């Protein structure tokens, strides 16, 4: 057992580190910028919160594009992609190494991951050659940003319950309906969408998959204001949106199969949100006072801290096990499927407990908040969303139970009935 890189891995790590050192700023455990209202939390498709309205958001986007271009030129933007589409042609272990190194730097994130991680790979499998040539290289450089239009008001955990209508009209398709939870729709240039082309077919059989220009007439985007006060997601309305049949990926009625290609890449695309874990609350307990002195000297606090430490490090070492498999060129086991389930709840518990330790100051969620820059206040809200986005805790437990442990599927009412005969409740 050791944690050493192989010679090639070490060389690649040095390459990555040199690039980052020359082009980015290092991250501290708790950001020391006094004006920094937001913790450095960002996940795929949800860029870190930017204060200052539309103009500031536009500036942040431009900064992100500049960074992405640099990263692409250095070869690190799409390490797993083949060279012919502008990728690095690298291995999963190299992607892991780069991500580990980048984790220590303050770089823009949340804009390009969905395209490069999920949608690009889908186009590689299902797209025509001219599509790949036209779209993939610009996805890497950040010149064109992509979003994923899957979820709907009545298709969340039950993703195949999509109702968005796709009706064929000659060489075109006409889309009508609503998508929701679309990360980055407001800054995306293109999107990939799943729609129902045959409502009389079985639920998973009547879907078709397309890509489209987000500026196509008839698309209306409305931001969703979240619990955190910020808006990373959107509702997207489709009103007689016409797209050519040439923008179909996969066959008519094959949409679910294509969507699975996208979803299978999700695990690789969604990284760890840095910034709120054991280390942060450990630092906080060395500053905050409770009735008998510093929080870290209090026995109850110490007991709780130990639980979070073993969760935090347990996940880190679980990742090491998976990385070991990658490093040997093997497929990792299913152990990393526990990752988001543990991380999100831990973040929620840690945040809530940190607020407790602040006592009444924990109520304050203000720009001038002197206590730890609102880190835990923001985490308190963000974590509530994190337990739902990208698979709820409950769906993740089902996935572990069924796919990892091999337990039987729940009895389902939607397997043998045409979609348009299924009961659908309020929606």
């Amino acid at each position, binding site marked *: *057992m050791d944690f050493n890189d192989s010679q090639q891995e070490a060389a690649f790590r040095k390459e990555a580190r040199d690039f980052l050192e020359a082009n980015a700023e290092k991250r501290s455990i708790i950001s020391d910028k006094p004006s920094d209202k937001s913790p450095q939390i960002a996940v795929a498709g949800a860029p870190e919160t930017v204060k200052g309205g539309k103009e500031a958001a536009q500036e942040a986007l431009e900064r992100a594009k500049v960074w992405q271009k640099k990263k692409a030129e250095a070869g690190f933007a799409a390490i797993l992609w083949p060279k012919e589409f502008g990728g690095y042609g690298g291995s999963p272990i190299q992607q892991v190494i780069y991500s580990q190194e980048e984790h220590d730097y303050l770089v823009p994130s949340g804009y390009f991951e969905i395209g490069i991680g999920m949608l690009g790979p889908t186009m590689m499998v299902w797209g025509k050659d001219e599509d790949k040539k036209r779209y993939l290289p610009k996805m890497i450089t950040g010149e064109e940003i992509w979003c994923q239009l899957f979820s709907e008001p009545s298709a969340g955990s039950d993703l195949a319950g999509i109702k968005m209508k796709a009706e064929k009209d000659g060489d075109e398709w006409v889309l009508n309906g609503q998508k929701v939870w679309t990360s980055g729709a407001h800054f995306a240039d293109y999107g990939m969408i799943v729609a129902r082309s045959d409502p009389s077919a079985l639920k998973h059989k009547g879907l078709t998959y397309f890509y489209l220009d987000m500026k196509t007439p008839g698309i209306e985007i409305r931001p969703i204001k979240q619990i955190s006060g910020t808006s990373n997601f959107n509702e997207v309305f489709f009103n007689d949106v016409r797209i050519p049949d040439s923008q179909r990926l996969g066959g008519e009625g094959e949409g679910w199969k294509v969507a699975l290609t996208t979803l299978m890449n999700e695990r690789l695309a969604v990284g760890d949100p840095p910034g709120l874990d054991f280390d942060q609350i450990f630092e906080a307990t060395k500053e905050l006072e409770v009735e008998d002195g510093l929080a870290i000297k209090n026995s109850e606090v*110490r007991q709780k801290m130990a639980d979070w430490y*073993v969760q935090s*490090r347990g996940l*880190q070492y679980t990742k090491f*096990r998976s990385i070991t*498999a990658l490093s040997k060129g093997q497929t990792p086991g299913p152990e990393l499927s526990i990752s988001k389930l543990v991380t999100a709840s831990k973040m929620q518990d840690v945040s809530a407990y940190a607020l407790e330790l602040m006592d009444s100051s924990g109520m304050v969620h203000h720009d001038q908040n002197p206590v730890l820059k609102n880190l835990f206040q923001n985490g308190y809200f963000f974590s509530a969303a994190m337990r739902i986005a990208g698979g709820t805790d409950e769906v993740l437990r089902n996935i572990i139970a069924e796919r990892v442990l091999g*337990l039987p599927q729940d009895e389902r009412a939607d397997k043998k009935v045409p979609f348009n005969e299924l009961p659908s409740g309020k929606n």
Partner: protein
Amino acid sequence: MNFDFSDDQKLLRDQARKFLFDKCDRKSVRTILDDDQLHYHKELWSQISEMGWTGTAIPEEYGGLGLGMLELCVIAEELGRSLAPTPFSSSIYLFAEFIKNYGSEDQKKKFLPLIASGEKIGTFALSETNGTPKPSNVKTEYSSETINGYKSPVSDGETADYLIIAANSDNKGNRNSLSLYIVDLHQDGVSKTSLETIDPTRPACSIKFENVKAELLGEQGMAWDMTENIFNRAAVLYSFEQVGGAQVSLDEAKKYSMERFAFGRQIGSFQALKHKMADMYVKIELARSNAYYGAWALSTDSNELPVAAAGARVSASDAFNYAAKENIQIHGGVGFTWDYDCHLFYRRSKLLSLNIGSTRQWKENLISNLEKRNIV
């Protein structure tokens, strides 16, 4: 990165698993559970000793196999899976490690070959009263080359030939007044009283010492430091036993939930049960990963050992306690019968999480070692 056991170590694991599957079935475990007079499975003990498991991490010059601590971790996990009713942990994780790490050359030559061959069994005793052991609770005294006092509970005390014991060598009541001594338990003045335990397959007794001869182990006044270090080493090995037991608890819960039908379907298809088993899986994988890290620290003599061992221990106790209790829950009514095996794991899980200090105590150790390390 190579955060995994080697192919040879995995081969050892497979062999051990197969052997214990054959020789240490539940019927064997129950012979010890059901008979108050039997304290361990003698036949199993002599078989695993013959194969050299008892000498796994003891150097060849002292009669062992001279393999490393990683190999011992592998064996520990298998012993945990099979609920092996043997004094392996007391004799190997504790007694042998004390002698190996702190014994004089003469002591190593004298004791290690007997322990490695399984011919003799050793154990360790610190506790004298209820609650967390601390220096001021140790009343047992050493003077004029003899021990007087009392220890309870002493794991595997009934079967042990030798005992390492903490006793006061001068003014009582502080850390530096305590030293470790080796006691031959086959002598006048040693009186043992059997104690029932929550897991009768892992027995204990109390021992009274009246003018009992003993020899010093390691440096005088260093009992507490030595014990902390050996407990850290043992904690990693215990955590592998716990991970093994937790995994089998989950496997058996799963098996039962797929065979048992209620409301016209397999109970394992109900989300309430699936989510419980998913939570078991989460805790077990976290514990396994923390145990791996402990194994790495143990096998490399890393400065990380105190933190890594405590982390492994806390995580493994949590996983096994949870898996064992929810295994009973998933079995429903039969889960709390004597006939079904659920209680064997429920007993073992709690016993293992108390044996070298409670989870509460190990959490405290973890945080105080993190503070000492001063970096996270």
